[in-house]
């Protein structure tokens, strides 16, 4: 209510305008109820009322008498009536202004919702015809944006999907190549392409909404991912400990596994450390790679971000790993931050507040 009354809101402007209009119109109506009478007062105190065209001379004072209705006594008598009237006018102006601004308010609320969620409900097409029109236009725009986003996602998914068949053929054909060095190189290229495909499809699939929250053993999660990495010959260690967390287990696994993959892509070893204060759970993945230039710290969260440095000499870029990981952290009311280590290397720090 107080927000409504700030001087720059549409509501307060309309309210003031309406209020002024009714007050002025009523005042002028009241005043016109009686006509003015002019007269002169002579030094002896006698008063002569002047008629049209009449003139008097000599030392005198001009008096103007108010019509009977608006004399001060009349005002005091009429006070309760006037008060009720004024209150009614203020009330009418308040609701009138509210009614006039409500379509705009609904629209702006809908626009705010649209920013957060494309699949939000439509704006009610109600109110005066201009408001209905605006709501209709807005709904059509939302529908179009939604269709376009959906179409792009479908298109990207279809392309990624259709690439799988030719990629399978190439994988089989490579086996016929005799040159072992060449074979290894082609295989590495193919693996990179496959990884990009999978990441893209995973990103578009968005199964995150449907996964239920369960108590998840964070320690076992870190240790099993480290174990899987060790199975492929990499060095991943786990330090510290953590209590279970209410989480979406598959999503959080993907998040942490992306961070470990990233660490191993740019460094040789990864070190996972768990810290649990009871108020906050922190999971850090450190690598011994080259780190990230300070001014690129946010950029790497963009899908398929690329850096000029030597960091991406192994692959085309960061892919979707960090985007997916941060999205997962945010879904758990947590955050993902990247920090360069002083002694070189990168720390990816996941933090989750423990809600009591």
């Amino acid at each position, binding site marked *: 209510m107080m927000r409504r009354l700030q001087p720059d809101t549409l509501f307060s402007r309309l309210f003031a305008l309406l209020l002024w209009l009714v007050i002025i119109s009523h005042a002028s109506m009241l005043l016109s109820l009686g006509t003015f009478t002019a007269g002169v007062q002579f030094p002896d105190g006698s008063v002569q009322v002047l008629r049209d065209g009449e003139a008097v001379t000599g030392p005198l004072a001009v008096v103007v008498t108010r019509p009977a209705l608006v004399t001060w006594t009349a005002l005091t008598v009429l006070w309760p009536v006037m008060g009720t009237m004024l209150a009614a006018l203020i009330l009418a102006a308040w609701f009138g202004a509210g009614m006039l601004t409500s379509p705009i308010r609904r629209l702006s609320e809908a626009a705010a919702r649209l920013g957060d969620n494309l699949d939000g409900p439509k704006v009610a097409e109600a109110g005066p015809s201009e408001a209905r029109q605006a709501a209709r236009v807005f709904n059509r725009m939302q529908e179009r944006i939604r269709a376009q986003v959906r179409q792009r996602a479908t298109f990207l998914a279809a392309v990624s999907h259709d690439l799988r*068949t030719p990629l399978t*053929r190439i994988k*089989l054909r490579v086996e016929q190549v005799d040159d072992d060095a060449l074979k290894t190189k082609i295989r590495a290229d193919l693996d990179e392409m496959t990884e990009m495909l999978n990441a893209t499809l995973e990103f578009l699939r968005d199964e995150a909404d449907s996964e239920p929250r369960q108590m998840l*053993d964070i320690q076992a999660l870190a240790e099993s991912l480290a174990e899987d990495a060790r199975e492929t010959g990499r060095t991943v260690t786990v330090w510290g400990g953590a209590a279970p967390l209410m989480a979406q*287990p598959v999503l959080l696994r993907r998040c942490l596994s992306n961070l470990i993959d990233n660490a191993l892509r740019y460094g040789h070893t990864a070190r996972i450390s768990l810290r649990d204060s009871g108020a906050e759970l922190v999971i850090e993945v450190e690598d011994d790679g080259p780190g990230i230039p300070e001014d690129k710290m946010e950029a790497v969260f963009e899908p398929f971000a690329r850096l000029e440095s030597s960091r991406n000499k192994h692959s085309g870029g960061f892919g979707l790993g960090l985007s997916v990981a941060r999205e997962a952290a945010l879904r758990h009311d947590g955050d993902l931050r990247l920090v360069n280590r002083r002694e070189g290397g990168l720390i990816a720090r996941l933090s989750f507040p423990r809600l009591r």
Partner: protein
Amino acid sequence: MDDVRALIVDDDPEIRDLLSGYLAGYGVHAEAVGDGAAMRMAMANREFHVVILDLMLPAEDGLSLCRELRETGNIPVIILTARGETADRVLGLGLGADDYMVKPFEPRELVARIETVLRRARASEGAAPARREIVSFEGWSLNRIARQLVTPQELVVPLSNAEFRLLSAFIEHPRRVLSRDYLIDIARGRSADVFDRSIDLLVSRLRQKLNDDPKSPMLIKTIRGEGYMFDASVQ
């Protein structure tokens, strides 16, 4: 592999040729067909040990063919597909497929999976292995798609790939002694260097996750000189 006959069902003629050629190099004699009708005809004429089935087929899709194979017999089925969605995986395994590979797959990995599936089929000798998405034992449950173990207290305990393979093997053969060699083979997966000792380490890690006291284990029992036995009834 000696004299294994595989039937490939895939609508892409080049993949049919390439794959049969590749498998031949590993001693697998593969016949390749393009759709469900041809699959039925081939199976009426010859006996196969394993069916490699693509999901996206022109007339009838792979999932309905998989269901049909499961209803009419016990031949192992490996699904190959360009769709990697979890829902498809659940559906495929729910319909009784033995394994699931997403294109583009690693050809060598397919050979390994064929070996595993055949070995499993031989070991179970007709007894239908647990193929459901979620299997439970003694208050615990294992989600085979998400690869998650859930404790009786509803705590989700993630498993490493090797632990998952080992536990799956135990669950498929409850109350039977599994030899160390067999378990080493199962646990190995892609990595080649799983030694004799590391299977004991793996078992002890799995026991720890199952809260199974190593001094007097209730779930995974050590059978001295032979191997291990999973002593629980599996639903």
